């Protein structure tokens, strides 16, 4: 019989993780965390996924969290272990992904002495975590872990770092359960102000040219919020658009969906955003990839903004009716108030608004020139989507042109099926994120849509796939270029392709084989379907190296520093691109 105060720090940690419902931790061992690994060895409740690089552990936990809605868990050692995790932490921070990252630390007596593998982890991670802790007393450990999970998932979700000195995890101490821990200060407001909600629905009922602009916050809020968002869309008949982070919040198959908004969003979505008279922003943050030039952003509209984080309000764009609260709670109240007030939309105005929108839709802005000779990247995604849609795949992406085509040409009817690095735009995100999702859903089809360059940033995780028998499919859109960089150089730097071409890439088929997986190369449009089917039907991990047209660019495009109505629709518009000086300095 062990008494509560007989536990050592490592046992306390594992008990706390168990009480938090953690089933999987992604990690990599080292000196400072050996006592924790010893405890992991002695039990078989918590599954540990041994990655091949700590950055990948964090992205895997992000993939796991985004696919499940749970908090991801990471365990890494001190010094290089924690610094390797930093990119992933910032990625999770910018995309509001809930996570607890536990880092080893040198014993408290050595902190500050430049001890072996010492890093000021709380100092380094302060600006790239939602919160962090250095645990100095084993008796604080259980409380801190419970607090960390609470902070990670409450309000606007984010990564929380817990730094664990080695002497703390070996010392004996007291355990307390989650029910004994209440956070002193952090209590985000989830209910929206009812007066603001009433003003918002009144404005919506008067709207003649409304648009709903949905973001990642809808998905963050949970499945009920997602259902309520769909209800709001149906109830109002309003057109809606989604951000890169919001894809799948409301089904893309809805006839009211205008496609993605923003730099590489559709013509109809961006023009509707520009010309609307009422914009309802729900869990999105007016990111500069969405707004373009803010001084000309949606100049005629009154704006409603629902967001749980008061710092998102009026940050980039000044709004008329802010509603601070959780999307689910606020939408529930909005729909209730709408019904109680017996409000109706302005049918006549809405009809003519839809006529205008249909005119923009007729442009068919995602149209591209088909080819029988080379595989057009858009075609590759279209075929992948068509051949896998009945399986509801989870799609992860790396960062670049392929990511944008994946966003434009796959249609998501469900949330949590799209895993992409939006805010930080981290090349190397996709493979480990797909791995994390596959750990959560071993039976599901999980595909990483990759660029040949991005994939090499975390290619070592092929070994993790093999060890854990994770059948992730890697769909490489191989254009031999840092395609997105090349596109900007073509449009903004006079076609001077400085360092965006790589002469040398590995043979991805052999690489797959080297890691015990299967692979295939395809370069003819006629062979693509068969190759995709082979990828899906082959058990286990698979790399499909799709040789795509290297000269293709992503359109539509709002050039940096331009307004929504200054979109480039295709190569024919490139000549008249606005080459604003302001735009050149933007990223």
């Amino acid at each position, binding site marked *: 019989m062990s008494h509560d105060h007989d536990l050592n720090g490592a046992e306390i940690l594992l008990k706390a993780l168990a009480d938090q419902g953690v089933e999987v931790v992604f990690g990599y061992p080292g000196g400072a965390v050996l006592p924790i690994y010893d405890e992991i060895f002695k039990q078989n409740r918590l599954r540990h996924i041994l990655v091949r690089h700590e950055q990948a552990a964090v992205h895997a936990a992000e993939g796991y969290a985004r696919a499940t809605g749970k908090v991801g868990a990471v365990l890494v050692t001190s010094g290089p272990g924690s610094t390797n995790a930093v990119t992933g932490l910032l990625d999770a921070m910018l995309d509001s992904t809930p996570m607890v990252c536990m880092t080893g630390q040198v014993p408290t007596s050595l902190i500050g002495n430049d001890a072996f593998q010492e890093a000021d982890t*709380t100092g380094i991670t302060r*600006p790239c975590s939602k919160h962090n802790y250095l645990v100095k007393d084993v008796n604080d450990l259980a409380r801190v872990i419970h607090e960390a999970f609470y*902070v990670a998932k409450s309000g606007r979700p984010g990564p929380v770092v817990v730094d664990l000195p080695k002497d703390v995890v070996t010392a004996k101490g007291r355990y307390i359960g989650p029910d004994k821990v209440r956070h002193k200060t952090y209590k985000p407001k989830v209910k929206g102000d009812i007066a603001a909600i009433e003003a918002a629905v009144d404005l919506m009922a008067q709207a003649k040219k409304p648009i709903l602009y949905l973001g990642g916050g809808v998905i963050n809020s949970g499945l009920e919020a997602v259902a309520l968002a769909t209800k709001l869309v149906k109830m109002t008949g309003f057109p809606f658009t989604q951000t890169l982070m919001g894809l799948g919040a409301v089904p893309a198959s809805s006839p009211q969906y205008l496609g993605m908004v923003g730099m590489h969003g559709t013509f109809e979505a961006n023009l509707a955003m520009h010309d609307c008279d009422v914009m309802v922003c729900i869990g999105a943050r007016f990111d500069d990839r969405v707004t373009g030039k*803010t001084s000309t952003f949606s100049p005629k509209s009154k704006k409603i903004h629902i967001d749980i984080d008061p*710092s998102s309000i009026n*940050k*980039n*764009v*000044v709004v008329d009716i802010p509603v601070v609260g959780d999307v689910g709670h606020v939408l529930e109240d909005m729909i209730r108030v709408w019904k109680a007030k017996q409000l109706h939309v302005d049918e006549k105005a809405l009809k003519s608004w839809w006529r205008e929108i249909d005119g923009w839709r007729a442009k068919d802005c995602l149209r591209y020139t088909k080819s029988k000779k080379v595989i057009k990247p858009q075609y590759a995604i279209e075929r992948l989507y068509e051949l896998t849609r009945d399986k509801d795949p989870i799609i992860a992406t790396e960062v670049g042109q392929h990511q944008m085509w994946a966003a434009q040409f796959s249609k998501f009817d469900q949330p949590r099926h799209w895993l992409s690095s939006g805010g930080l735009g981290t090349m190397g995100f996709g493979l480990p994120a797909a791995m994390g999702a596959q750990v959560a859903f071993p039976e599901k089809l999980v595909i990483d849509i990759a660029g040949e360059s991005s994939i090499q940033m975390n290619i070592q995780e092929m070994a993790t796939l093999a060890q854990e028998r994770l059948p992730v499919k890697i769909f490489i859109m191989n254009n031999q270029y840092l395609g997105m960089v090349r596109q900007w150089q073509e449009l903004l730097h006079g076609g001077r392709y400085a360092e965006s071409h790589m002469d040398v890439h590995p043979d991805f088929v052999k690489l797959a084989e080297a890691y015990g997986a299967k692979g295939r190369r395809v370069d003819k449009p006629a062979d693509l379907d068969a190759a995709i089917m082979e990828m899906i039907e082959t058990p286990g991990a698979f790399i499909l190296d799709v040789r795509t047209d290297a000269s293709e660019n992503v359109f539509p495009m709002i050039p940096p520093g331009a307004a929504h109505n200054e979109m480039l629709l295709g190569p024919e518009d490139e000549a008249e691109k606005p080459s604003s000086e302001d735009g050149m300095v933007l990223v």
Partner: protein
Amino acid sequence: MTGKHQPHTHRHTIAVLVDNEPGVLARVIGLFSGRGYNIESLTVAEVAARDNLSRITVVTSGTAQIIEQIKAQLSRLVPVHKVVDLTNEGPAVERELALVKVAGIGEKRVESLRIAGIFRAHTVDSTNESFVFEIVGRSDKIDAFINLMEPLGLVDVSRTGVVAIARGTQPL
């Protein structure tokens, strides 16, 4: 709005009640430097030992939109209990303390002592050739005092930065 360099910037004094825990000051300062906000003055000290609370008084400047952002960003920090804009919610009393060292002999020495009297500064140290004055007041009063001491042999200044509190009966 792109914001940070627009006209119409105003000076605001903001009081922040925080848990007195390691790293909390670094969080606040890191927020200001990381996001490019100004710090004109910042003071911090424990104010309620029993509740383990510290109070930070920060004087900053920016457009109305930036000031709103600063407050929202501060409130978002996990160990922050409360953020109050004393300038907006005023009236408030602001004070700063400075120690001012003036070295000199003869006429200048006499003159420095006379001005110190006018400003109600106390002499807290003196040698045959120097004084240390302690002066309390609004920052502009201290600025004025230091300016007057400049030609009289000013050699060193140490200032606390602003502390502030709302007038009237209510707590923060």
